[in-house]
Every structure is written in structure tokens, then in C-alpha cells.
């Protein structure tokens, strides 16, 4: 019954311990990717190229990486703030969908608008929709103590069904041959791209700016401090009079706002309309990004880029070598599991049970 080893917490911590776990997880994921591709009949060298080099090899591909990094970065920064307070919002996917819906209403209703205010209004609407969707979980948690993990998770499915209904009915393009999608947005409703020929848009700058704000909020603001105390020592937060309800509301609203904004950027960016599919699972992948980045705004920046590389690498492999699209999900899973495993070895020391060294004196 007794394992031949014991696990004890590490007492000393050095500044380099921080990046060890994410780097180990990334290495493990790359290794797993190579093994997986090889098993699927892709030679190792080619697999490595497609997974890691190709996504960064041409300006277009690099643009695609940045395009996919944008929502991941935005959402992960929002989620990490809540995760540090131990408020587990795993409903970013649903909040993103609601953001996409909210952001689509104006360009669909005013389809021939030329107003420069359209885009800002869409951003406001989408963000509010994302927050409102998260607020449902906040109300249920703070009023009825309903577990926010379950509520946000189930709200994802509801959001998806809501989207299906809307694109098939009320928001469907009347001239769209019955395809379940909205009318194309007018030009003023689209985000300007960063350079010609690429799809990456100014949403990237917003995501980077949001990262800077997240850093200031987490590391320097009193509100960020209150949230963090509530996360690591709830008794201490109660002792100091930091309200738990406030923490729940703030965490969920920030997460919802970030995801909602990401949703607007999808419809106003690469999609240009509201469709049945607005996200390839960004809301879930961002959870992995947040943890891989150590819930640290700077770490999340790198984690979002790596996750985006996997997305694009998986796409390229699918197109050029016929590797199934599910490879992306598998690699995401490997990434999360190896990160969690690596954290165990960083935070704890595994010691073999053996007779202690005894001196003869």
C-alpha cells in the first residue's frame, strides 16, 4: 500500500523556477506532437517543420498566428484575473459567443451604415453581452451559492444553441439562400488589418494593451490585491473585510468582458459576418493558456503565442499532410496535462524512501 517514495513541498524557491514548468510542458507537447505525427505517417522532420516552423515561415502564416493569438490573449488575461481569485470561470466560450452575437446586431440592423461610430458601438455591445452572460453565473453564485464552474460550463451549451437559433432565424441573411449565417458586415464594421495580404488586425494591439492593463491591475492595484488575497487565503480576506461577493462579481465580469470583446473581434475581423461557428474553441484553449502562463500577464503573452502556433501548425498539417484536425485538441490536452504534471515537480520534491544517511560518529 505504501509507495516507495514520498512527496514533500519544496522549501526554497529561486527566480528561475517560474518558467520551468511551462517550458517543460511546451517541450513535452512538441515531443508528443512529433510522436503523434510520426504515427500518422508523417516523417519526423516534416512533422516538426509543419508544427513549429511553417506557422512562422511566411508573413501570411505568421499573421495567422498573431490573428489566433489575439482572442487567446484577450480571454486568457481576463480569465487569469478570476483564476487568481479562485473563481473558476470556464464559460469563456459562451461569453465569446454572446460577444459575437452582441457585436453583430448593429452591423446586421444597419447593414448599409457608413458611420465611423459603428465599430466602437459594436465593441461596447459585444463586451456588454459577454459581461451579461457571465453575470448570470455571478448572480447564481453570490445569491444562491451555485457553483460557478457548473453554471458557466452549462451556459456554454446554451450560448451555442442561442447562436444556432439566431443565425437560422432572426439574424439570417434574407438574401443568403437560406444558409445559416448573417449578412456580410459593411466595411465600417470591419477591423483594419495590420498589413496587406494578412488577416491579422488591430485587435492584436487591443489585446496587447489589455495585457498591460492586466499587469497593472494584478501587480499594482488594490482591487487586484483584494482578489488575490481572496484566492490564496479566504479567511484572511474575510478578516480584512474584503467582500467575497465583490470578488465573484469582478472576476466573472472581467472574464466575460474580455471574452465578449474577443467575440466581437472574431465577427468584425476574420469572419465578417455572424456564422454558426465563431470560435474553434478559443474559450477553452484560453484556460490552458492562462495556466501555462502561470496566471501571470507576462507569461500569458508567450503562452498565447505558443497556443496560436499549435492552432496554425495543426491547420497546415491538416492541409498538407492530411493529418486529422483533432490533432490540435490532442496537443492542447497534452499541453495542459504536462503543465499540471510539471507543476507538481516544481512545487514538490519526490524523495525515495530509503534509510537516511547515518554517520558513524
Amino acid at each position, binding site marked *: 500500500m505504501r509507495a516507495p517514495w514520498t512527496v514533500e513541498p519544496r522549501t526554497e524557491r529561486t527566480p528561475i523556477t517560474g518558467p520551468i514548468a511551462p517550458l517543460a510542458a511546451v517541450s513535452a507537447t512538441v515531443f508528443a506532437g512529433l510522436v503523434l505525427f510520426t504515427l500518422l505517417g508523417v516523417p519526423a522532420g516534416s512533422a516538426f517543420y509543419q508544427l513549429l516552423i511553417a506557422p512562422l515561415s511566411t508573413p501570411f502564416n505568421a499573421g495567422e498566428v498573431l490573428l489566433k493569438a489575439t482572442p487567446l490573449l484577450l480571454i486568457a488575461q481576463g480569465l487569469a484575473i478570476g483564476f487568481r481569485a479562485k473563481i473558476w470561470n470556464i464559460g469563456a466560450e459562451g461569453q465569446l459567443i454572446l460577444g459575437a452575437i452582441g457585436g453583430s446586431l448593429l452591423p446586421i440592423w444597419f447593414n448599409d451604415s457608413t458611420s465611423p461610430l459603428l465599430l466602437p458601438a459594436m465593441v461596447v455591445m459585444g463586451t456588454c453581452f459577454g459581461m451579461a452572460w457571465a453575470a448570470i453565473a455571478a448572480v447564481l453564485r453570490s445569491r444562491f451559492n451555485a457553483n460557478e464552474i457548473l453554471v458557466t460550463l452549462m451556459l456554454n451549451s446554451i450560448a451555442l444553441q442561442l447562436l444556432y437559433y439566431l443565425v437560422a432565424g432572426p439574424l439570417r441573411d434574407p438574401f443568403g439562400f437560406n444558409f445559416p449565417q448573417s449578412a456580410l458586415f459593411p466595411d465600417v464594421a470591419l477591423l483594419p488589418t495590420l498589413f496587406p495580404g494578412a488577416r491579422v488586425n488591430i485587435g492584436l494591439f487591443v489585446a496587447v494593451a489589455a495585457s498591460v492593463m492586466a499587469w497593472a491591475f494584478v501587480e499594482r492595484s488594490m482591487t487586484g490585491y483584494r482578489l488575490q*488575497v481572496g484566492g490564496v*487565503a479566504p479567511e484572511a480576506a474575510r478578516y480584512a473585510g474584503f467582500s467575497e461577493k465583490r470578488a465573484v462579481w469582478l472576476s466573472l465580469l472581467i472574464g466575460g468582458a474580455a471574452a465578449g470583446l474577443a467575440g466581437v473581434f472574431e465577427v468584425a475581423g476574420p469572419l465578417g459576418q455572424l456564422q454558426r461557428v465563431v470560435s474553434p474553441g478559443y474559450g477553452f484553449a484560453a484556460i490552458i493558456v492562462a495556466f501555462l502562463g502561470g496566471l501571470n500577464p507576462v507569461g500569458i503573452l508567450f503562452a498565447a503565442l505558443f497556443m496560436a502556433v499549435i492552432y496554425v501548425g495543426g491547420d497546415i498539417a491538416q492541409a498538407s499532410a492530411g493529418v486529422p484536425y483533432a490533432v490540435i485538441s490532442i496537443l492542447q490536452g497534452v499541453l495542459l496535462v504536462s503543465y499540471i504534471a510539471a507543476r507538481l515537480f516544481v512545487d514538490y520534491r519526490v524523495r525515495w524512501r530509503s534509510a537516511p*544517511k547515518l554517520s558513524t560518529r
Partner: protein
Amino acid sequence: MTTLHETTTNTSAAPPAVPLLELVGVTKTFGAMTANDNIALSIMPGEIHAILGENGAGKSTLMKMIYGVLAPDAGRIRWNGEDVTIRDPAHARRLGIGMVFQHFSLFETLTVAENISLSIDEKPATLAPRIAAIGERFGLPLDPAALVHSLSVGQRQRAEIIRCLLQAPRLIIMDEPTSVLPPSGVAPLFETIRELAAGGCAVLFISHKLEEIRSLCHRATIMRAGKIVGSVDPTAETSESLARLMIGRNVPHPTRRTARPGKDAVLELRDLDHTPNDPFGTRLEKIGLEVRPGEILGIAGVSGNGQREMAALLSGEALLPRAERDRIRIAGVGCGDADAGQRRRMGFAFVPEERNGRGAVPEMSLTLNALLTGHGAGLVRRGFVAQRHARHFAESCISAMNVRCAGPQSEARSLSGGNLQKFIIGREIRLAPKVLVASQPTWGVDVGAAAAIRQELITLRDKGVGILIISEELEELFEVADRLQVLFRGRLSPSLDRAEADTARIGDYMTGGFLSAPSIATAA
């Protein structure tokens, strides 16, 4: 005292040839710190052996190695004259070594009986009557079916003691076992310990109460900074000389003047009835008290009689319904429904019983811990933490209270219990409160630090602050309090002036004597 001399004579008359436990050159290091340096110790069967030392002197590390929790880096442990490697606590228990921990090793989500059945291979159902019986015999009443998370610190320690006694060990390690007992409970426990010793069981007794060591123990080994600095016969020493050996200098005693309390109460409880959410909590009934500026009111009583509930109501961690807000008043203003933050803004400060995790965040630096309650004192500018101000605030708490640490950047958990407590008290004092409530301010704190904390509380009183101290240590209350009230089963006794309060009177109150007696008028 006669029993003591008899026992002493007995052991010295017929010394057994082989020590029960012998340590030779035992050394343990954690990183750069040597917690135990070349320790030599030998304990005879039937010996009551005291280990004396300040917090952080290395006593707990030593005990953990004897109990198999930690493995020594070097040195030998002999049990009955044979070299042993104590692999883990289960092995230690099989050898016949039992331990009562200072920091509890109980699972909060299990009942007392379930916890005990984890270390004794027996079903909780069959253990329950035995737990009750041992509790009865040693004056440690405890409900075997109670969930540990609902128990007070004192009740948890009772569970630890009972668990140890149930295993009929040959050596019992006791880490400050008396700190949770009422005065009337200490004598029976000592009687038990002496009986156990007379039966050949050895006891390693850790306590900072020097009087207890002098009256109970046959031998005292004194540790300082990981080394053994002396081994003495405690009966031949005075408390002063023992304390001097332990901390390496003279122990300061708090000096005090007579209190000059102001007229208007800064803190009042009136007819406070409260049923806690926790089904195992203590119901408070008709609690009434008054703290005036410039006086210290002490609340005596054995832990588990409503101290935790009362402290939570005072601090704002538990709230009253709005209609009953006036039952708690700070500076005359009803605040029973105000949360902890609002009360602090009214001039209220609070030092809780638990330091790590409640009074301080273990993983955070002292600077960030200063912010926990000090954020209102100009440490936040436009919503952002004023780093420099926060660091200065932490530095001033450290220097004012002589907190031993590497600086304001050290994590709270790296400090010893006593030092962290000094920091927390320093922080609360620096907020210049009108009223300060401190719960068990020196629990588990060593002599030197405890004296410093008590002196600070008296100094604060002299500045006109109203202070309420909830403590299980009568000695402490007699040292600092101007008036005393006793909490028993959720009821609060009438107030006694320090002149009329003596151990007998308080002891009577601590067992409910005030409930039947006609109530004595509250000292005005």
C-alpha cells in the same frame, strides 16, 4: 509538590542501566539553516524530560525526527540501546513512541473518532466509547462524533492528547499540552503524566510555562538556535534562571500603572444572543460587556466556550441582522451588521487567533501583508498600491516590534509564529485604533516575544485605547488585564476587578460558578 519529590527520589534511587531513547550527534539542516546541530539526548524509562527553547530553537524539528516525520541528516537514534532508523510515524508508534503535536495533525473533514481510527487500527464506532472514557478519566471532555473543523483550537488539542493516550505508548512527546487546559485541568493532567511515568513510560514535555516544568519534570534540556545549551535539574532552578538559559538574556516583565479609563465605552456588547451557522459552534447568550478607553478587559475561559464565535462577531467576520445592529457598538455607534472593513474604518482593530491564513497571508511578503488591514492608512493612491509607503509601513512594524526577519520582502510563512504575531500586532497598533480586540495574543509564542507583546498592549492602553483580550492563559490576563470576565458555555460572567480576581474565583467562574450565584453588580 510531595509527589514530585517522591518520583524524583524513585528514579534517582534505581537508575535503569539502558536509556529508553538516546540521540547521538543528530543533525538536520534545511537548505542553509541548521535546525538541529549535533544533538545529544538520553531519556530513561519513567523520566519526565523537558525540552525548553524559544520558537525556532529547533525543538519541533528534533521531536519530528524522534517521531519519524523527518529523517536526520547525520547522527544516531537508539531505542532501548539498539540503533534504529525510524522510517515514519507509524513505525514510531509501533516502537511505542506517541506524540501530541503543537500544530495539529487532524483532518478537518473527519470526526474525532475517524481521525483517531486513522492512526489506531480500529473502527470509529468501537473507538468512540473509549475516547469518551479516556476523556472522562483525564478531564478532557470531547464528543467523538464532532467534525474536527467545528472544533476550537483547544478541543483539537484534546483530540490529539486522547489519540496519543489511546495507544498506550512507552514514550510520549507532548508539545505544549497544557496551553489549552483550564487551571483545574492542569493538575489532573500532571497527575496522569506522573502516573504514566511511575508505570515506566517516559515523557518528553515541551512547554514554555516554566513553572510547570519546574513542578513536573525531572530533567530539562535547553535548546537555543538549534544547539543544546544546557541540561539542568529544573527543581533546582528558578523560573528566571531557566528563562535566562533559554533566551540567553534576562526576561523583561511588563511594567504597568493603574488604569485611568475614560468615561464613554468604545466597545459595547448588549444582551447579545447569537446562534452560529456552524451546527457545532457555541451559542452565545446574553453577552454583555463594556470596554472603556484606556483599560484592558480580559475574557478568560477554556477554549470552545464561545471565544471563536464572540471574536467573529466583534471583528465583523460574522454579522448580526440589521435589526440587532445596536447590540454591538463601537464608540457608541451600532455596527452589528457592518462588515470587517467598515468596522476598521470606525477605529476598530483586531488580532485573530490564527496568524497564518487569517491574520496574515502566508504566501505573501510582509509588505503585502501590511496592506491587508493597513490599506486605509495612505498606502493606496488612486486605487494603486503605493509600493514605497507600503514597504515603509511594513518596515516600521518590523522595527517597532523587533520582528526577526530578513526584511519586508520576506514571506509571512518564513517567520516563526511568535515573530509573525509580533508583526500582526505591530500592524494593528500602527493603525492607531480606538479599540483593539486580540484573541489569544501570545498562544504558542515564546517567553521573550510574549513579554514584548504584553508590554505593547499595556503601552497602547496607556495611550487611551480600549483593549479586549480573549485568552486562555490566566497568567497572561493577570499580567495585563484591568478587569476580567469569564466565558463559559456561551455565557459571560460579571466583571471582576483585577484586585478581586484570583485563581480560585476565576477557576470557579470557568466551570460555571457565576450562573447559579446571584449576579454580582458589574464594576462601574
